[in-house]
């Protein structure tokens, strides 16, 4: 067969190739919508809804998913500098890492431009600091979140127990209320986020914290070992499957009356009184976490540096969602960072958990301010779980976690 | 060595019945051949005896014991398969000793028996070889050796020579025959080749469509076939079959095509009766006074000459042992000697005897 005399045959190969290219170009052109990804919890559902409502319909797409997945997706997308994500939710821990990597768009000029229009001075300096890195603002603050101690007022009253103020009291109460039908306490030990939160509390309340001033891990010292040992002991009062429980599962456990108390986020408090989901409406009470040291976080939304959409438009979208009115309404889900809203006394009357929340903010502690804490969390939570499930002794597991952590931080240049 | 009796054996595969009421009596030490066209049920019958198929109704007795429902290994039989069925990953010696190994016979005893069987078959230098290194004939012998080692009551052969070339087949026929003489075991042998049947058997069982057509010694079947089917089946080339009727005077046979063949002896039929006349090729004589026929084809084999004749539309095959000067297209006269004519009923095919 002589190819020279078959030009038609050659054309036949070119046409499909062109079609393919056209099809590929199609969806790329259609990526005009602003794509927001976020962790999924009631407050963020509310706020992302507000963002979508701020712009014409169809302009914004929102995807909600568990935080570990969200961060994974964001990491992979941004490390390849793709423009697939425009706006993303970040908490203080992840925010540091993303800003340090240079993946976020600095917002200082836009902040100045819209300062008056959206009353951006209403945010306290501490909150602005929490969303800044290396002197630049990188995110719009959306919520201050703090871990609270949830407990069933009816069950504790029945058993004649006071809401616990120390870790020992917590352990005793959980032991007393633990039954076949209702577990003594929830425990959210799914790696990475949930387990890290739970461990953070124990590590601060009983242990000496995670790092010393030189960023060397100290969580495997005697106090740290005691902390994790206590954590392991508490799991005997936890509902089965706790190694796979994150915030969603623990919330459901509390709502369904499958557990009597435990550590959970402020943002989940309102769900306890939601008659459509909860069986314990009105029965849940709150105090600051016993022993203190539970996590507080300042979360926000940031713009990807690789986004191909108009940053002005996106900033205004976020500012709308973070407006005074929006936050007033959102106060039921999360503590609004805006001073004017937070200091409103009507809040404490309307929402029963605000008193506890204000106390928790005082006694709580944020994650160590390092960009790599979540990566450390990957290592540490795995080993803590090994200790909890009995695969390794607590001391050995923590020692190994410390060794791996040190090696990781060394490779990231912390000890130079 | 033992007598084998098959009583009213039937076999059905689901709704299809392949064997209808088979009755066969085999004496101790007899060499019996089951022969018949493809699909007649001979292999099925053999497998029934072996126990590889379940008998539907009827009984099989070996040495007086009813074995109809027994597992093959409990029937004390040995079988040589058409494909030899040698275990490819075992040596010749291991193949032959396998059954003894299954019965937990000691190694020393095993080796002794294997050596003895190998001696009989001339396999001693091959004991360490593997089946794929052997020729067809050697594999055949190993298969037989495997059977001999068992020292069974009955030997079963399932078309063992079909995979060999013609010359080897002739040689193996003789070997099997001499083996039989030496071991004096009862043998049941299945083949579709009637020459094998004729040369090896003490007794032949002709089967068709699951029925026994005739049982008898080779010469009995040759000289006095019980029906047209057996007559045509036994003998090579086949017996010539002519349709027609007996002549008015009872002295000739008039074929349907109108040729009158004079008969030297009176036929056991009344004149005018329609019948089929059977004529063996080797019984045809050529003579000037015979019925006129034209030569169609001459096939010299060296030892004899096969001639195809046209008898006014009917085709006859004749075999001559002399070197006759014949040419194709020539006209000759066909004559029939007296006592070698067979008559069969037109409808039933049964032999008509006086």
């Amino acid at each position, binding site marked *: 067969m002589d190819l020279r005399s078959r030009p038609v045959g050659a054309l036949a190969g070119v046409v499909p190739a062109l079609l393919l290219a056209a099809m590929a170009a199609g969806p790329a052109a259609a990526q005009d919508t602003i794509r927001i990804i976020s962790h999924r919890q009631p407050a963020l559902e509310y706020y992302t809804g507000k963002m979508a409502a701020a712009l014409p319909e169809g302009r914004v797409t929102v995807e909600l998913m568990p935080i570990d997945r969200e961060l994974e997706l964001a990491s*992979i997308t941004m490390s390849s500098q793709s423009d697939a994500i425009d706006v993303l939710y970040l908490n203080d821990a992840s925010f540091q890492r993303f800003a340090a990597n240079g993946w976020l768009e600095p917002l200082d000029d836009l902040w100045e431009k819209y300062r008056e229009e959206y009353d951006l001075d209403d945010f306290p300096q501490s909150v602005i600091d929490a969303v800044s890195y290396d002197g630049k603002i990188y995110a719009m603050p959306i919520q201050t979140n703090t871990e609270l101690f949830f407990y069933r007022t009816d069950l504790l009253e029945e058993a004649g127990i006071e809401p616990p103020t120390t870790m020992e009291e917590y352990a005793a109460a959980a032991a007393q209320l633990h039954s076949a039908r209702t577990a003594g306490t929830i425990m959210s030990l799914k790696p990475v986020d949930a387990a890290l939160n739970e461990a953070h509390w124990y590590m601060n309340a009983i242990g000496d914290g995670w790092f010393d001033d030189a960023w060397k891990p100290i969580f495997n010292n005697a106090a740290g070992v005691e902390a994790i040992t206590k954590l392991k002991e508490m799991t005997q009062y936890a509902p*089965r499957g706790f190694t796979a429980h994150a915030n969603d599962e623990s919330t459901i456990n509390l709502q369904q009356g499958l557990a009597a108390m435990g550590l959970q986020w402020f943002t989940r408090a309102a769900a306890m009184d939601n008659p459509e989901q909860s069986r314990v409406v009105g029965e849940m009470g709150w105090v600051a976490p016993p022993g203190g040291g539970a996590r507080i976080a300042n979360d926000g939304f940031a713009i990807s540096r690789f986004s191909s959409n108009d940053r002005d438009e996106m900033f205004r979208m976020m500012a709308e969602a973070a407006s005074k009115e929006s936050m007033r309404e959102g106060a039921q889900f999360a503590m609004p960072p805006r001073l004017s809203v937070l200091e409103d006394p009507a809040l404490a009357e309307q929402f029963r958990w605000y008193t506890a929340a204000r106390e928790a903010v005082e006694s709580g502690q944020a994650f160590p301010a390092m960009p790599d804490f979540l990566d450390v969390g990957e290592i540490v939570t795995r080993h*803590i*779980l090994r200790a909890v499930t009995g695969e390794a002794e607590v001391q050995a597991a923590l020692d190994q976690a410390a060794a*791996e952590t040190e090696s990781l931080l060394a490779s990231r240049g912390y000890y130079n | 060595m033992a007598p084998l009796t098959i009583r009213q054996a039937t076999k059905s595969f689901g709704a299809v019945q392949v064997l209808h009421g088979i009755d066969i009596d085999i004496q101790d030490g007899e060499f019996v051949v089951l022969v018949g066209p493809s699909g007649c049920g001979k292999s099925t019958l053999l497998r029934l005896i072996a126990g590889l198929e379940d008998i539907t109704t009827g009984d099989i007795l070996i040495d007086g014991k009813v074995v109809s429902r027994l597992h093959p290994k409990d029937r004390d039989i040995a*079988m040589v*398969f058409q*494909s030899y069925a040698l*275990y490819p*990953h075992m040596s010749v010696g291991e193949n032959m000793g396998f059954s003894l190994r299954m019965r937990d016979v000691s190694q020393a005893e095993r080796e002794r028996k294997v050596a003895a069987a190998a001696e009989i078959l001339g396999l001693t230098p091959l004991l360490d070889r593997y089946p794929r290194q052997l020729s067809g004939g050697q594999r055949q012998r190993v298969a037989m050796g495997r059977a001999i080692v068992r020292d069974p009551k009955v030997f079963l052969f399932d078309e063992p020579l079909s995979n060999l070339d013609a010359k080897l087949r002739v040689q193996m026929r003789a070997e099997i025959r001499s083996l039989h003489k030496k071991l004096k075991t009862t043998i049941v042998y299945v083949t579709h080749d009637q020459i094998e049947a004729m040369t090896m058997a003490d007794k032949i069982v002709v089967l068709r469509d699951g029925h026994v057509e005739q049982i008898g010694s080779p010469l009995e079947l040759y000289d006095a076939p019980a029906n047209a089917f057996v007559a045509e089946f036994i003998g090579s080339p086949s017996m010539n079959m002519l349709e027609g009727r007996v002549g008015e005077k009872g002295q000739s046979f008039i074929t349907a095509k109108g040729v009158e063949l004079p008969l030297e002896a009176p036929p056991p039929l009344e004149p005018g009766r329609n019948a089929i006349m059977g004529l063996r090729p080797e019984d045809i004589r050529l003579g000037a006074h015979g019925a006129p026929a034209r030569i169609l084809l001459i096939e010299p084999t060296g030892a004899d000459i096969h001639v195809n004749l046209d008898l006014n539309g009917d085709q006859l095959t004749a075999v001559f042992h002399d070197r006759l000067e014949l040419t194709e297209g020539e006209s000759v006269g066909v004559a029939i000697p007296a006592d070698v004519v067979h008559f069969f009923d037109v409808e039933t095919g049964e032999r008509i005897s006086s």
Partner: protein
Amino acid sequence: MVSWQRGLWLFFVPSFGLLAVVLLWPLGYAIYLSFFDYFLGTGTRTFIGLGNYIELLSEARLWRSMWTTIIIAFGSVALEFAVGFALALALYRLNSSAKVFSVLLFLPHIVTPVVAALFLKWMLAANWGLVDATLLTFDITPPDWLGDPLWAKVSVILADAWIFTPLIMMVLYAALQGLDASLIEAAQIDGASNWRILRHVIIPALIPAIIFTISVRLMDVFRFFDLIYVLTGGGPGTATETITMYTYQLGFRMLEVGKASALGVITLVIVAALLLSINRALNSIYRGGDR
């Protein structure tokens, strides 16, 4: 002899080109990256030679993940093979109704592994899963299928077996079809019990198919990912963290691409070595006289 025309080699180019792009280039790049300390967050790349390899091979976590991989891999393949072989033999005996059964038995394999893993996860979820809910109504407290280190391994093994046993069954069934039935009959007449027939006649004849299925499955199972990722995520702790899960952690969670590449290369070497030794071992045991 085919005479080589000039320019004949041009016909190789398309397929070789495709192979090079899809297979050789990524492989080469991975090997290249494994010699670097490469953190995707900051994007800095520093050459450290065999540093990654040394670090990995001296890590307890790596050896533990290898041990976990071995347990899960051999557990799965052993289970799949035993059950698959038994089913193939059963089908072989059935003859006529075999077709219906073989289709039904093959269904679990048709489902995408990820989808199968997802609904297996729902079945095994603590308290609310189908299995737990059923057992709890009978007042039996079930173990934490996915949360207990031992049971998590068992669940993963069972899940893999559920998905891949049909494959082994089909391959061995096909191989059985090619078996000369008269060999089995001869063995029956020779007095071999079913067990001995299996050992002396069927298995030796099936050795090529057996080697194939075991090798392929072991290779696959060593590179296990979707099933474990969905079911347990490598947890609890590191109970089901196989080499691939650890590689995923390194590459996509911690963004340590250099180290992950090194682990990938190590995995490749291990799997290749494994394959060769299995091949050799099985061949020598059973093919003694043959070839």
